Structure formats: structure tokens, C-alpha cells
């Protein structure tokens, strides 16, 4: 694989930058701990250190830089620490048969994945239905499209708590439904836009051909517009599922949620355990990567079976 080298190079560069950033980010914490342990640091009081830049602190206390790489509650954990935390809350727990314990990220990831898939399904159906309506009706095109665009300009973090409150008002128990709605809200838009583009992709010549056969509107849809839209559909599904995951996590952030990766991020923030936040963040990224990759494979297989070059 000749792609592997550039990918690894970029990864190595990111890791190197990250490691380098740990030193200035954690020097204060390291010095605080050292001071409490009775060691000599410059300057001695934490109030005085507050006014010093991290660079100055590093120059004055070079022997404590290394300690910043092994803090229990680092401001910025090292990739190694994040990896260890991730392993501790996933693989390690699974090995000990506690994969679905409330402390395991597998459990929380599963909760998030469920809502994401529900939201993705809902958003995809809405997006495709909207696209068909837009392509076949000028009136819908002119009345629906502006609202679809406006809907995406409203910050989802502002909307999410409202959706949660409203859905509990109408008697919906738990978070699964409101989370799925928030996630569908983010997901339907890329699907809508992609499908509109895809359904409109056949040229006049291809439509003329069907006209000479006196094909019905349904036949034109099934035999021309739908197959022609497939490459567009898969591209927007990949964007859509990533958006659905973001929506779910945002839906798990407002206080009250106790499970899901978003709730882990929030709880980690409240309890001052940055490692937990980072582990949850990485779990979310890995989940997103896996979902997008899955859709990518489905795209390749489908288009190949349709005989289209990709």
C-alpha cells in the first residue's frame, strides 16, 4: 500500500505535536503537585506562578517538565494516557466480562450508537422523501428548500435542550427519542441536498429518451433518476451519519443524561477528570470512523455491482 506512508507520516506529525504540547499545558499542574510535596519550585507560591507564562515556568523549572507527562489529572493528557484510559474502559473491561457495565465505554458507545442509527434512519427517510418532493414539485422546491436551509442555521446546542424538554412534556420517556430527533435534524440536510442533486443529475438527453418511450413518471424515477442518484446518495449518507453522531452526542450533553458518550464527556468535565473526556472523545471519533468506513464499503460494493466506475 503506497498510501500507507503519507498517512503514517501525518499521524506521526500529529502525535509529535501533541506530545510537544503536553509540556507547556501541564507545567503548572506539575509544579503545583511538586510544591505540595515540599519541593523547591520557582516561583514558590502558586499565586505568583499564575502571572508567569508557561514558557517562563518551563525555563525556570526544567526538571519538572517530565512530571507533566505523568499527571493523574492532566490538563492535556498524552496520547499514551488516552490510549491507556480507552483500553481500561473498553477492552480491559470486556476481557473481565464487564463490557456492559455502566463504567464501560462500550456500554456508553452502544447507547450513543443506537440513537445515532435511529436518527440516521429517520433523517435519511426524511431527506430522501423531501428530495423527491422537491424534484417533482416546483411549489415544494420553492417553499421547502429555504426552510431546510434556515433549519441548519439554528445552533443545534440551543435547540437540543428545547427538543428534550418538549418531548418530555408530551410524555415521551427517556432520552432515546429526543436524541434521535436531534440527530435526524442534523442528518436529514446533507441527505436532502445530495439526493436533490442526484435526482436532478440525468441530463435532458437521457430524459428525452424516456419521453420517446412515453415512460410514466414512476418509470422515469425508478429507471433513471434513482439509479443516477446513487453515487450522490452514498456520499451524502457518509456525511449524514457523521452528522447524526454529532447530533446524538449534543443530545446527551444537557444535564440529566447519564448514559452515552456525550454524557461521559459532560460528567468528565464536571468531575474534573480530563482523561475520561478524552477517552469518550476518542471513542466517539472511532465510532464515527467505523460508521463512515462501513458506508464507504457499501458504496463501493453497490456501485461496482451497478457497473459504475468509481
Amino acid at each position, binding site marked *: 500500500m503506497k498510501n500507507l506512508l503519507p498517512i503514517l507520516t501525518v499521524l506521526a506529525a500529529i502525535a509529535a505535536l501533541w506530545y510537544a504540547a503536553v509540556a507547556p499545558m501541564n507545567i503548572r499542574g506539575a509544579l503545583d503537585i511538586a510544591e505540595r510535596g515540599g519541593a523547591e519550585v520557582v516561583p514558590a507560591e502558586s499565586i505568583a506562578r499564575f502571572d508567569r507564562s508557561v514558557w517562563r515556568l518551563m525555563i525556570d523549572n526544567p526538571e519538572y517538565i517530565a512530571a507533566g507527562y505523568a499527571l493523574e489529572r492532566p490538563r492535556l493528557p498524552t496520547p499514551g494516557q488516552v490510549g491507556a484510559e480507552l483500553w481500561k474502559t473498553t477492552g480491559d473491561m470486556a476481557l473481565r466480562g464487564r463490557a456492559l457495565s455502566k463504567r464501560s465505554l462500550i456500554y456508553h458507545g452502544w447507547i450513543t450508537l443506537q440513537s445515532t442509527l435511529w436518527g440516521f434512519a429517520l433523517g435519511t427517510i426524511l431527506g430522501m422523501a423531501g428530495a423527491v418532493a422537491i424534484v417533482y414539485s416546483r411549489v415544494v422546491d420553492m417553499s421547502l428548500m429555504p426552510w431546510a436551509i434556515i433549519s441548519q442555521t439554528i445552533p443545534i446546542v440551543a435547540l437540543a435542550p428545547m427538543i428534550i424538554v418538549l418531548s418530555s412534556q408530551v410524555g415521551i420517556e427517556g432520552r432515546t427519542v429526543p436524541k434521535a430527533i436531534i440527530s435526524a435534524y442534523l442528518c436529514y440536510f446533507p441527505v436532502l441536498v445530495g439526493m436533490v442533486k442526484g435526482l436532478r443529475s440525468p441530463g435532458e*438527453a*437521457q430524459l*428525452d*429518451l*424516456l*419521453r*420517446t*418511450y*412515453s*415512460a410514466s413518471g414512476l*418509470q422515469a424515477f425508478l*429507471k*433513471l433518476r434513482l*439509479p*443516477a442518484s*446513487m453515487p450522490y446518495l452514498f456520499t451524502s449518507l457518509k456525511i449524514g451519519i457523521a452528522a447524526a453522531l454529532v447530533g446524538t452526542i449534543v443530545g446527551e450533553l444537557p444535564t440529566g443524561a447519564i448514559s452515552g458518550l456525550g454524557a461521559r464527556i459532560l460528567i468528565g468535565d464536571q468531575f474534573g477528570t480530563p482523561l475520561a473526556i478524552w477517552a469518550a472523545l476518542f471513542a466517539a471519533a472511532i465510532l464515527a470512523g467505523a460508521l463512515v468506513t462501513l458506508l464507504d464499503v457499501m458504496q463501493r460494493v453497490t456501485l461496482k455491482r*451497478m*457497473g*459504475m*466506475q468509481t
Partner: protein
Amino acid sequence: MQDQTNAPVPDRSTTKPVISAKSLDLTFETNDGPVHALSGVDLDIGKGEFVSFIGPSGCGKTTFLRCIAALETPTGGTLTVNDMTPDEARRARAYGYVFQAAGLYPWRTIEKNIALPLEIMGYSKAEQDERIARVLDLVELSNFGKKYPWQLSGGMQQRASIARALAFDADILLMDEPFGALDEIVRDHLNEQLLDLWARTEKTIGFVTHSIPEAVYLSTKIVVMSPRPGRITDVIDSPLPKERPLDIRDTPEFLEIAHRVRDGLRAGHAYDD
């Protein structure tokens, strides 16, 4: 024509024309003002005729074919196809159309592309297979049925699109420069096959070409057109017999008609300057 007795043209006093245009006008309203694509076009095409349209680029050949196919609506005059409006004739699936570009669907194999009109018109699966095999053989693509369009050369794609138009039983075949992209030898071969097919099926064919020999070789009637506004400058009823081997192209009769077509084309250009 003194030679009228030899002509294969059906006697038009008894047969009604299949396609009849009377002072047909079509003006496209464009941003740069109106474009007179067709102006005062009068033409009758009888059943079983092979009519070629020839003329400089932009003289309205494609536009006239599209009017017959109800893909364009004339802005003046009358046009009937099988005694119906073009739109009714289209809904009655009266014609097959071969476009200037092959326009095969990239997600369908050649077979499936040919099956497209058959599926739409509701032929049974067995009937579809039988017809696909027959027309693939006709355009000599039998070994390529399972291939996708991008695996074929441009000329092969064009042959596939002809096969697609021949797969169903339409009495009228409209062809817009179908052989423009082919080399001379294949073109000769397909011309022969087209004549053969025309003789066997008695289809009425409207055929656009830029090639004088092709027009003369194929047609019972040659329509010479000129641009700005698009109109008919000459209609030549061919005295050549229906049976036409390729070497008929060296006979004096053939060359005489070719001359007349060329003169017609020249006149159109002179008018233009």
C-alpha cells in the same frame, strides 16, 4: 422525375402520408433574440419511405426530427404523425428515436440498455431476451451484451443505441446522425444493414446526415435544408431502385443525384452570404 415508374416511392395519391408538415414554424426565444430554427416547412412523408435530411449545421434538421417526436412544440403550422398530433403519436409509441449521442445508461449493461424500452413497454421476459439477441446480432454486438457502455468504443455504443431503437416495433424510425461517429467501412456495412432492415420491415425512416453519398445511397427522398431561417430548399425523389448494392454508388444515376444535392447545398450557402 421522368423515371417515376422505377421509383420505390409509394403512390401518394392513394396512400395518406405518415408524416405531414404544413408551413411549419419553430422559433426559439433566446436571450439574444428569437432564433428561427424552422420556417415554412412543407413536407409529406409516405408510408415506407426512407427520407434523408441534409444541410449545413444549424439548419434545423434535429429540430424538425424532434418536432415529429413531440420533443419540441412548433410555434406555427400543422404537423401530423399517423393522422394524430405528434404528442398522441408519441403516446401511441409510434416511433423509435436514435439520438446524435448514444446516451446509454452507464449502470446498465448493453443488454439491459436495449431492454430499457422493452421493460417500459411491458414486453415479457422471454420476448425481451429474444428481441435483445436479435438486435444485438443485427448490429454485430452479440458478444458484448454483458459489457457496460464504458467498456465499448464510441462507435460500438452508437450501434448499441441503434439496436435499442430497433428492439421494439415502431413503424417510424427517426435517426439523428446515427453513423456520424463511425469509420467508413463500418458505416458502409451498417448502411447496407439498415437498407436491408428497412426493406424487410417497411418502416418509415427519417434520417439526418451530413454525408451526401450516405443520403443518396439510403434514401427514397432527400430533403435539402438551409439555415437562418431553417427551411427546405429542395426535395429530391430518388429514381434509384429499391435493391441497392454498394457499388450502385458508382453509377451515373447515383452521381447525378449526388450532384443535385450538392448544388442544393451550395445554393443554401450562397443565400447565406
